[in-house]
């Protein structure tokens, strides 16, 4: 795991090289080897100093997460943390210089190793990142990071790194004092490392003095106020666990010496890493996302890339998709109703890039190059050379059909055509002018530059090769694809809309709007359901429900909650011009300088004779989504539960600590899920009725939902219960 080289000047270089995987991680193998080396090296007085570096692309990017998922006992995790901490401390106290010559990304445990070194020098390359991202998976640093970082750069400065998982470039790291020096290349890196060792003068980092001298030391008033305020900012309804545990680790650790602080950190670390919340986040956000990204990679690797993408519609989605394409060097042409519209769209792309330049993530040069790949037009003639066309206009099936009809004569024979629709069945949008095997859906999420999920919708006619090309396209955009089968609402919109519809139905029934909103937030959604309705806009919701009614035909909307949501949305739009956030009024009013408030029109639905408790409302909002997701499973919309979980978290902000709709079912068990749905059906109506698939899974003695191996088949066959 770690290669040893001793140089002539008695400097030992330890080059980390994980032979079992792509990246260097801290696992049992590494730790054992590390322990042995530390023991040997610290015994040998002839050594002048130590240099850590890497033989792989990254320096060291964290711990092997398998261990945390599989650990049965939190004490095992505690011991692991203590082993790493103790060995790092041994090196730190050794008396000889230890240098981290960082020639790749140093994240998590890798950065903690570097922090324990007396000198950190890093190659100034834009691909290198340094930081402690553990919190993004519901974990925390367990190798002394919560103790060393505050002592290094001060408590106040360290908190964004620890609490938000912020990672920085080598340049920024140098500016912030995280590293001591930069190097232009590998040889300069080692040169500087050696130079430090040669002139080392036993200048041990004085952690203890720095801790007590910190202006925000918890011993003083300023510190007490800071920690009080930070605690409050992490204690809102629906807040996740990890940040508060990290804050406690810093607070408690800074009251004692470094080594004792590490003991405190190890305890919080074990508690978090063993928690179901963290395990859920790791399973979905790490393993799940990776699986989605890697699926069919043997096919997508050899698939032919798209060279030119035609985008119909220069709105927010169109511009976003264009930006994503040109960022990866893919040429695009944007068409809008007129040239002004298309130019406006290109300008939006430019604005987004300007923001990235301001953040130091993009250069002016890179922006110019990307914009050079954007052409604008008001005519489909310019789409004749496109090999992929994405339609991103209003959620109106008639409009889309007419656009596709108009486009048809200008397309290449072998063009792949997609709609960015969030809900309309693809099969209804295509005309005979198109080859059905090359016509599918590519559903991006807004805002495109922030949302990594892409829902790829295939129909029963879709061609495998076309599908693999599209998957490759999505992966090239650095997005996370899930594959779903064509139907109304696909997967994400179908399930996500339930969050809103259940809420608006409850509003219509007369329940307190604030309780409804706080129920959503308390569950762990980033926004309450009515807030979200305003964000996506009331007219989009009305359109989606309207389209669904059309599809249902003469029955219209049969589900009472959907019916009532349509009534409310329609009333707010037509009687009060309330379209949502973009029109400054929706369910909420959005005054210019103050925070938003629920509007009088919204509150008028309140009937004081009905009263729902917060916990009951939470159950309604959560389980209606569970029910819908299980129906999707039953109908064969999804090809795996993992994709459903990934879509939950990345697509609509489903509470990360719950892991996703299917992970939630597995957590509480399928029997409990069934019982709960039956109970809710009794109390609130047939829309909660448990799908047959639940019964059939239970009959087969499934305790949890497994992923399917087959691809084009639905995950479960529907049996008579």
């Amino acid at each position: 795991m770690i290669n040893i080289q001793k140089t002539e000047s008695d400097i030992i270089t330890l080059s980390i090289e994980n032979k079992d995987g792509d990246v260097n991680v801290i696992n049992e193998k590494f730790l054992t080897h590390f322990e042995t080396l530390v023991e040997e090296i610290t015994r040998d007085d002839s050594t002048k100093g130590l240099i850590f570096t890497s033989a792989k692309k990254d320096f060291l990017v964290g711990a092997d997460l398998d261990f945390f998922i599989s650990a049965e006992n939190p004490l095992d995790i505690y011991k692991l943390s203590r082993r790493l901490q103790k060995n790092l401390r041994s090196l730190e106290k050794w008396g000889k210089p230890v240098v981290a010559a960082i020639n790749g990304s140093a994240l998590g445990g890798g950065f903690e190793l570097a922090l324990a070194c007396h000198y950190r020098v890093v190659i100034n390359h834009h691909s290198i990142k340094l930081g402690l991202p553990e919190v993004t998976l519901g974990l925390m640093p367990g190798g002394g990071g919560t103790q060393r970082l505050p002592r290094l750069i001060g408590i106040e400065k360290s908190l964004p790194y620890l609490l938000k998982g912020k990672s920085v470039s080598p340049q920024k790291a140098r500016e912030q004092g995280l590293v001591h020096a930069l190097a232009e290349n590998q040889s300069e890196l080692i040169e500087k490392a050696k130079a430090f060792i040669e002139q080392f003068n036993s200048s041990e980092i004085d952690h203890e003095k720095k801790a007590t001298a910190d202006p925000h030391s918890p011993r003083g008033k300023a510190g007490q106020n800071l920690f009080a305020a930070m605690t409050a900012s992490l204690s809102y309804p629906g807040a996740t666990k990890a940040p508060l545990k990290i804050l406690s680790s810093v607070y408690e650790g800074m009251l004692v010496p470094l080594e004792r602080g590490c003991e405190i950190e190890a305890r919080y670390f074990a508690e978090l890493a063993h928690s179901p919340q963290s395990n859920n986040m790791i399973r979905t956000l790490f393993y799940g996302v990776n699986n989605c990204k890697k699926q069919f990679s043997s096919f997508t690797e050899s698939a032919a890339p798209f060279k030119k993408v035609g985008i119909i519609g220069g709105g927010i989605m169109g511009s976003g998709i264009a930006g994503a394409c040109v960022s990866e060097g893919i040429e695009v042409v944007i068409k809008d109703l007129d040239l002004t519209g298309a130019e406006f769209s290109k300008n939006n792309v430019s604005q987004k890039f300007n923001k990235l330049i301001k953040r130091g993530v993009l250069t002016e040069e890179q922006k110019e190059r990307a914009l050079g790949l954007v052409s604008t037009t008001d005519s489909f003639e310019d789409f004749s050379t496109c090999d992929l066309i994405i339609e991103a206009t209003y959620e109106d099936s008639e409009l889309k059909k007419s656009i596709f009809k108009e486009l048809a004569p200008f397309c290449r024979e072998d063009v792949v055509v997609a709609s960015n629709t969030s809900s309309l069945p693809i099969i209804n949008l295509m005309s005979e002018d198109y080859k059905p095997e090359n016509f599918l859906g590519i559903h991006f999420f807004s805002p495109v530059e922030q949302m990594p999920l892409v829902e790829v919708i295939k129909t029963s006619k879709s061609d495998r090769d076309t599908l693999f090309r599209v998957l490759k396209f999505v992966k090239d955009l650095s997005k996370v694809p899930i594959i779903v089968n064509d139907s109304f609402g696909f997967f994400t919109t179908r399930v996500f809309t339930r969050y809103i519809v259940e809420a608006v139905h409850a509003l219509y029934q007369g329940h307190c709007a604030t309780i409804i909103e706080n129920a959503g937030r308390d569950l762990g959604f980033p926004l309450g359901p009515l807030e979200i309705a305003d964000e996506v806009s009331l007219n989009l919701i009305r359109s989606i429900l309207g389209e669904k009614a059309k599809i249902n035909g003469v029955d219209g909307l049969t589900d009472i909650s959907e019916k009532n949501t349509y009534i409310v949305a329609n009333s707010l739009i037509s009687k009060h011009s309330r379209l949502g956030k973009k029109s400054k009024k929706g369910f909420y009013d959005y005054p210019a300088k103050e925070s938003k408030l629920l509007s009088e029109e919204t509150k008028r639905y309140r009937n004081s004779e009905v009263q729902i408790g917060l916990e009951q409302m939470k159950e309604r909002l959560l389980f209606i989504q569970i029910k819908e997701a299980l129906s999707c499973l039953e109908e064969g919309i999804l090809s795996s539960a993992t994709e459903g979980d990934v879509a939950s978290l990345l697509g609509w902000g489903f509470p990360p600590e719950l892991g996703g709709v299917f992970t939630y079912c597995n957590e509480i068990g399928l029997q409990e899920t069934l019982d709960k749905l039956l109970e809710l059906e009794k109390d609130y109506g047939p829309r909660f009725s448990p799908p047959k698939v639940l019964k059939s899974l239970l009959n087969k003695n499934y305790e949890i939902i497994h992923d399917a191996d087959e691809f084009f088949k639905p995950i479960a066959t529907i049996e008579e219960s």
Partner: protein
Amino acid sequence: MNTPVYIYDSVRTPRGKGKSDGSLHIVRPVTLASFALKSLTDRQSIPLERIEDVIFGCVTQIGEQGGCIAKAATLYAGLPYSVAAQTLNRFCGSGLEAIGHAAAKIGSGMNDLIIAGGVESMSRVPMGDDGGPMMSDPDVSSSIGFIPQGISADLIATLRGYGRRDLDQWAVRSHQRASHAQEQNYFRKSLIPVKDKLGQSYLSYDEMVRSSTTMESLAKLTPSFSLLGEKYGFDKVAIKKYPELEKIFHLHHAGNSSSMVDGAAAIYIGSEKIQKELNITPRARIRSYAITGSEPTIMLTGLIPATQMALKKADLTIDDVDLFEINEAFASVVLNTMDQLKIPEEKVNVNGGAIALGHPLGATGAMLVSSLIDELERIDKRIGLVTLCIGGGMGIAMVIERGS
């Protein structure tokens, strides 16, 4: 109380402005406390060796108020070495707790004569200087749902639907009543001017009272807790516990909240036995005492159950009580207490409250008792009740009956 416990006499210093330009700012807290002790003991002919213990409330027990300030003050006042002392902290209820504590020791037969009181110099030892895990230890604070008291007060106002006007009106009343009481010298029995060694008076009246306070003058003040609530996230901590609220209305400001002041008080508490032994006449009897905990986020509602408990123990109802002293920590606290317990407004804080007079944390409870007894005597009424809300979510109440 099963055995009678009596209040024989009480003194209190005026409340000085709790800032560096306050009249008592150059009077050290140990001096204030010893001054109160000396004033009380000097004006009675009780032999000093008979005093067994001094129990003083003091909240911010650090620095000048650390190291058992009660004992320091007892020695500094020249009381005999045999007089023991204890400093206690039950936040804003400390002054009343000291009396309750003394009453318990006397009622149980452990002691016969105790001086109970309190001292706080907020100008010299600012509130919060002593730290504490409830506020700043993340694991503790988050599990409690801690929010600063001012936001608790705003939370009460939001829940009860009190508007800015309601709160300001009470503030105006506090100043008008206090101002009138000062003019009429209603406080004369207990109020003792604080004097220096040259005989000059540092302060002889409660200097925070402003008869010029009006609704208009108060309307100009900006709410004190918006930033803390909205920017620092404490509002959301409150909403987490009270999810029926969309937002917290920030209505409290310096003018309708208690002011920070310096002051001390001392009260003779004794047994029936000591009455006979020393032939002294009690001014009042302690009928009952109640202490209870309450929801810590809203924090300031504990005085409601405490009042109910104290009345029940004394076998009395709200209607039986002639005068109420409901500590005006924040205007919404008083309004909420009156509304929930249906206490008639004309019986409440008749000579003003902490909004006008000030709230010297560790001493207030004792000051309220002394003012209450003075007023019961003045208007020839019998039953009084003192109650205070307490940090961390507690409430304390005591029923007092004038005479023996």
